[in-house]
Every structure is written in structure tokens, then in C-alpha cells.
């Protein structure tokens, strides 16, 4: 139970811990960061993996906007206005794009639920172990006789 609670608290704790870094990155993005988040529209890879003419042109634009003091969101918005939402590497948080965000989460939750249920179900249906005989208690006569016979056979 404690582990489950820890598992639930871990994501928000991580989010809180990384929040200042994320805020700094939003206010003062670098070309390197944005290159991994922006697509090259002709080669369908992220910008950091492309050296096509349009990718070079987009890099020039990003550098200029960073120098002008634009935030990460502002730069992305300007790129979307010119190239459409497909310029962003991450799918949009609306319409069909929502599936890409929520389907893995739903799958993870469903898996977690299934495992939890399976463990609960297994622990409930397992046959309870019989009470251990108190030490020193005599064996059943038949069993005692068999044990004696076996011991005698071993001695002989």
C-alpha cells in the first residue's frame, strides 16, 4: 500500500522539482532545445536531424527570435502561424492529437488496474494454510509407524 502511495506521489513531486528549470527554459529557450521540438516540414524529422534548406531557414528564424527575447511558446506560435501545427514535434492537445497524449496514459492506468485487481483477487482466493502442529505433539499412529519403519530400514 505504501509503495502504491509512493508511486502516486512520485509524478507530482518530480513535476514540482523540475518546475523552476521548465520555467527558465520557457523564458530563455535555446536553439538546441527547440531543435528537438520543431519538425523539418520537408524531411519529417526533428530540426536537429535535418540539414535541408528549410530546416536551415527555420534555425535562422529561431536564433533571431531568441535574440529578440521571445519565449519558447511565442516562437512556437509564430512557427505554427507560418507552417501549421504539423511543425511541432509533439501532437496538439486537441482533436485527434489528444489520442496520442491520453492513450498511453489510459493504457498504463488500465494495466495498473488490471495488475492491482489480479493481485487482490489472487490474495483472496488462495487457500489458507493449515495451522502448524504445535511442537512436540504426537504424530498420527499410522504416520508414526511408517516413520519408525523407515528409520529402522535406514539403520539396517
Amino acid at each position, binding site marked *: 500500500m505504501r509503495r502504491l502511495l509512493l508511486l502516486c506521489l512520485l509524478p507530482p513531486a518530480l513535476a514540482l522539482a523540475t518546475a523552476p528549470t521548465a520555467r527558465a527554459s520557457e523564458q530563455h529557450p535555446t536553439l538546441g532545445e527547440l531543435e528537438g521540438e520543431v519538425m523539418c516540414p*520537408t524531411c519529417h524529422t526533428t530540426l536537429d536531424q535535418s540539414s535541408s534548406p*528549410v530546416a536551415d531557414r527555420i534555425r535562422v528564424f529561431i536564433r533571431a527570435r531568441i535574440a529578440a527575447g521571445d519565449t519558447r511558446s511565442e516562437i512556437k506560435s509564430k512557427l505554427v502561424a507560418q*507552417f501549421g501545427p504539423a511543425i511541432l514535434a509533439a501532437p496538439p492537445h486537441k482533436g485527434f492529437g489528444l489520442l496520442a497524449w491520453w492513450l498511453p496514459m489510459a493504457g498504463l492506468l488500465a494495466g495498473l488496474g488490471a495488475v492491482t485487481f489480479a493481485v487482490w*483477487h489472487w490474495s483472496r482466493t488462495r487457500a489458507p494454510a493449515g495451522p502448524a502442529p504445535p511442537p512436540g505433539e504426537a504424530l498420527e499412529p499410522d504416520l508414526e509407524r511408517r516413520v519408525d519403519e523407515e528409520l529402522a530400514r535406514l539403520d539396517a
Partner: protein
Amino acid sequence: MASSLKLAAQALAVAAVVGLLALLVWKVTHQPGSGVEKALSAGRHPPAPLFTLTRLDQPGKLALASLRGKAVVVNFWASWCRPCKEELPVLEKTWREYRKQGLVVVGVDAQDFTTDAKRFARKYGITYPIVHDAPSATVDRYGVTGFPETFFVDREGRLVGAHIAGSILSTSEIKAEFEDSIRRALRS
């Protein structure tokens, strides 16, 4: 109880797999523009996908539907595309030569910065209408996979002639196809 739960879980898993498979099939069969290419290859004349896009040569928008009754050359281009630069003088000459007969060349700039496209149009003295396809929706509807690409629309709004993927100057055969497609668009 246990067996019914197991059955329900199995049904749920099968339903999830079927759902994902259906999604995949839907996505594959609804590839944008694939219908246009198929129809043209089969010699059919499908209606040209309509668009209303922001003009770069002047304020306002241009709707393809507003050009009904005219033959239209739809040329997809971008300012960073070298073959696009090379064929621009031919497109400009075509527009000047045939406009009195009712031909319009429309340059659809896509995957490009509007500032670059405007500068480019000024530099090369383009006088035909230029529009910007910001979300590349028109590019998708026509099934454009690279730049430049050229389509021909007749006076009734149907795609006719060749679909030229690449520069209209790449070979003498393609140049001849270009001229023949213009004649076909004007003839209707």
C-alpha cells in the same frame, strides 16, 4: 465469478486491439490527396480540391471557386526551393501570354515564411496571384509531396492534363506536357 471476469478482460483486450486496428485502417485509407493522384493517373478528371487562402501579393483572400470559368494553373512552391526559382520565369511568361484567353496562374506558397515568399516574389517580378497555405491543408488535399508541383484546372473546376511533380523545365517532355495541359485547361 472468476471465469466471467476473465472473459470480460479478454473481450476488452480484443475490443482494444480491434479498435486500434480500425484506427490504423482509417488513417491509411484517408491519406490526404491520394484520391486526386489516383484519379489523375486513371485518366479521370476529378474536381480540383477547393481552397481559400490568404494572398501575399495583395490584401485579402483568394478562393479557387471564384476563378470558375477560367483555366487555372496551380503551382505549389516555396522560396527555399531551387527548382521553383528556375521555373518562375516560365510561369510568369505563361500568365502574361494566356491571361487574355482566360488563364490564371496561382502560386501556392507553402512550408515557407511569408516574408521570404513576398521578398522572393518581388525579386523575381511575379505578377500572378500568390497565396500562402499556412497549415499545408491545401498541400495535403492535392497530395503534394515535394516542391514544385503543378496542377491544371479547367474552366469547370476539374483537374485536367498532367500532374507535374517537379520542375516544369526538368525535361523537354515535361515542358511539352505543361504546354499541352494548358491547352486542355483552356479548351473546356
